[in-house]
């Protein structure tokens, strides 16, 4: 069966130099997205190697091969790199690639600003690491608590500069996403039909827009204290060290949702596709996402319970409250899968792994909202465990789910399923082995950010186990990298829509042409492509009225009920000839090629291939 090839490129590339030039100067959201993701992955490896050094040092009690100062720089840079140079750019890159496609736009709203945002990332990365060349990288933890950070080495100035740059990049990116989502949606794509990934990107962008500038203000103060004798954080001059924590966490807690909301979005994209059902409770998801975003601004001082300087019940209450919208998401995810036909391909496995493990991190968080218990485990390995269950089992699982899911769209090639599953098993087991024992260490009083710990009973064993797990996580990256390597050498045969998916990005070629779409299908629900393939959507109606967003209530109501529980009949409808041609199913599609599920095709009436339509 004919598969799709690339649309004609605007301009053929003749030489490597021309190609490099093209990439360096591009304003195409897809190329920028790829560059974001590639840089982010590189920083992930660096941050990961740092983590492995940390774990190797902690494998047994005593100081093995690092020095105090080196260790302090290691965990500072590990945290900073993972959060600001890995997870954030990775999500920005993915959203860059996917959001314009999902809303049916040709590019982002401000393509040149988009390129600018990207290029700040490598500069900021270099700046952060250049500390090593000037007498030591930053060493006050990723939270850079004052007054320690006022007194420590020059690496902190570079850390501040780097993060201000990254923050600016994020603010510009957020403006770009919001403008794209509000101004560039395809006709008919009303707000309440937007894919969940777009919704989550929107809320994330709003969080960035309001949280990051406050941190920038904090960095300004820190820089002034460090270099111009300012007194913001110095009690001797009338300042207040706690102020830094308020500012940092006013940013910092929204920040953790900035890291996780896109993952929620990815899971909400993948589950319906691989369960072959619509998302259960679309409106509830939108509501929950928005309330997580809003509540995120009212809980910051739960990081400061032990300072003795905050009003505890208020922050405890709102922290608990966040469990409710998150719970709504969890149960709606389960209901989405309930009664479906689950295809356990790699993206789906990562999404399921996300649900299974993020739950642990979320419950750890709920424990931490119990103020008296937080007195005990604050700044212990319980918190380290929480961090990694939400970030490794959460954000990293979400990122890999997204990469496996959208890889065929981005490259035109399917990643190998077997290697994908090997990676999944290693990562799943490794994450638990590495981070589960840290709960117990925390309960037993092992504090964080220490190069050495007392050889208390059990501590050696638990730390050693954790180190083994860390290396398993590290090793799990090898099958992934190998997978990418061998896949890039194969021909691009994935086809437009290998997963039989629902959203607009699958309605164009893989990879999409520079201008993204030849044409757009009508959008009359949150699953335009599904409607096209399976739904009884009348082809000639509503395209234009829906464009003005007037009729979304009516279409949301009609599409679903019609085929509740019924086998798909839409294909026989002679009025919908196109419905058969669109799902381009590649030979490489994993366990399920939707073709075999269609009675029509088995009847020996292969869909008319593309000639008929061009």
């Amino acid at each position: 069966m004919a598969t799709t090839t690339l649309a004609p490129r605007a301009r053929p590339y003749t030489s490597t130099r021309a190609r490099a030039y093209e990439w360096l100067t591009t304003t195409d959201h897809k190329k920028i997205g790829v560059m974001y993701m590639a840089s982010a992955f590189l920083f992930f490896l660096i941050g990961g190697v740092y983590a492995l050094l940390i774990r190797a040092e902690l494998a047994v009690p005593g100081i093995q091969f690092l020095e105090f100062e080196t260790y302090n720089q290691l965990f500072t840079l590990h945290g900073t790199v993972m959060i600001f140079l890995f997870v954030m750019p990775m999500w920005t890159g993915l959203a860059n690639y996917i959001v314009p496609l999902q809303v049916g736009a040709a590019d982002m709203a401000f393509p040149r600003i988009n390129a600018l945002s990207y290029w700040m990332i490598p500069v900021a990365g270099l700046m952060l690491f250049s500390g090593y060349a000037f007498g030591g990288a930053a060493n006050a933890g990723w939270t850079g608590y004052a007054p320690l950070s006022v007194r420590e080495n020059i690496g902190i100035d570079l850390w501040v500069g780097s993060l201000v740059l990254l923050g600016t990049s994020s603010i510009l990116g957020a403006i770009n996403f919001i403008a794209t989502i509000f101004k560039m949606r395809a006709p008919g794509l009303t707000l309440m039909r937007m894919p969940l990934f777009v919704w989550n990107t929107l809320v994330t962008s709003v969080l960035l827009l309001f949280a990051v500038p406050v941190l920038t203000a904090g960095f300004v103060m820190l820089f002034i204290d460090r270099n111009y004798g300012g007194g913001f954080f110095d009690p001797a001059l009338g300042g207040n060290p706690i102020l830094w924590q308020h500012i940092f966490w006013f940013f910092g807690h929204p920040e953790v949702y900035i890291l996780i909301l896109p993952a929620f979005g990815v899971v909400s994209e993948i589950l319906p596709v691989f369960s072959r059902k619509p998302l259960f409770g679309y409106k509830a998801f939108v509501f929950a996402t928005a309330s997580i975003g809003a509540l995120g601004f009212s809980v910051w001082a739960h990081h400061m319970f032990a300072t003795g300087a905050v009003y505890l019940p208020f922050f405890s209450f709102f922290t608990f409250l966040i469990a409710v919208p998150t719970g709504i998401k969890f149960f709606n995810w389960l209901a989405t899968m309930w009664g479906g036909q689950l295809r356990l391909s790699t993206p789906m496995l990562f999404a399921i792994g996300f649900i299974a493990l993020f739950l642990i991190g979320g419950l750890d968080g709920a424990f931490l909202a119990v103020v008296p218990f937080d007195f005990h485990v604050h700044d212990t390995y319980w918190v380290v465990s929480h961090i990694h269950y939400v970030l490794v089992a959460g954000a990293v699982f979400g990122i890999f789910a997204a990469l496996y899911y959208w890889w065929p769209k981005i490259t035109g090639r399917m990643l190998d399923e077997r290697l994908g599953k090997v990676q999944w098993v290693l990562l799943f087991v490794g994450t638990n082995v590495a981070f589960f024992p840290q709960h117990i260490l925390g309960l037993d009083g092992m504090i964080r950010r220490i190069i050495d710990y007392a050889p208390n009973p059990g501590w050696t064993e638990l730390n050693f186990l954790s180190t083994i797990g860390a290396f398993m996580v590290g090793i799990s990256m090898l099958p992934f990298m190998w997978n990418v390597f061998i896949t890039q050498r194969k021909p691009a045969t994935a086809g437009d829509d290998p997963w039989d998916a629902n959203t607009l990005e699958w309605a164009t070629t893989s990879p999409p042409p520079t201008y993204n779409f030849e044409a757009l299908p009508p959008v009359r629900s949150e699953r335009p492509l599904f409607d096209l393939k399976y739904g009884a959507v009348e082809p000639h109606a509503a395209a234009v009225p829906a464009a003005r967003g007037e009729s979304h209530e009516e279409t949301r109501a009609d599409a679903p009920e019609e085929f509740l529980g019924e086998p798909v009949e839409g294909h026989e409808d002679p009025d919908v000839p196109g419905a058969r041609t669109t799902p381009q199913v590649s030979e490489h599609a994993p366990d399920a090629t939707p073709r075999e599920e269609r009675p029509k095709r088995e009847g020996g009436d292969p869909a008319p291939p593309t000639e008929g339509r061009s």
Partner: protein
Amino acid sequence: MSAGSEVVQLPHAEESHVAQPHGDQGMNTALLGMMLFIGSEVMFFAGLFAAYFNARAAADQWPPAGLEDVVHLNPIVIIATVILIISSFTMQWGVWRIRKGDRTGLNRAVGVTLLLGIVFLAMQAYDYFLLVSEESFGINSGIYGTLFYTLTGFHGAHVFGGVIGLLVVFGRGIAGQFSARHHIAVEAVSAYWHFVDVVWIALFIVLYILH
């Protein structure tokens, strides 16, 4: 059409729309971008103001002992404030002119605004000079000095940014690039300039009146 023959045409291509922004609906995209940017700037100043109120609430005496009178209403500050407020009006006047298609009016208004902005910066610099030389009041004179210079300094930096924006608009205006229908840059810079003005009014009230 050689490559095009391999391209899958989506069904109903005739009826559906090629991707394009809804540029004609609601606020212009670039202006929306500027508004969002101003939103983030508001949060930036909110952070600095939070530091101010935090320090003020914690102090037994405000302004701290020995510094009671360094920062006070003086002619320089009052004139500078009036100048900045007037400049907001002249800017808006320019916007109204160009909406009517009056390019000369725009250029005049922007020119005046630009001038007022520069005069404001000069007066602020002179005020700093007096504070440092006559009162030896610097950024390292305790939390009060740190706050005063950080707040007013970052406001000044934003005025400076606005002046750069005005320069660009002025240059483009002279070159006749704006018309009644196409003058987004004017609208955007004007919005920014008003924002800078509002921040100054807040600063003025907090630093000079409520002290």
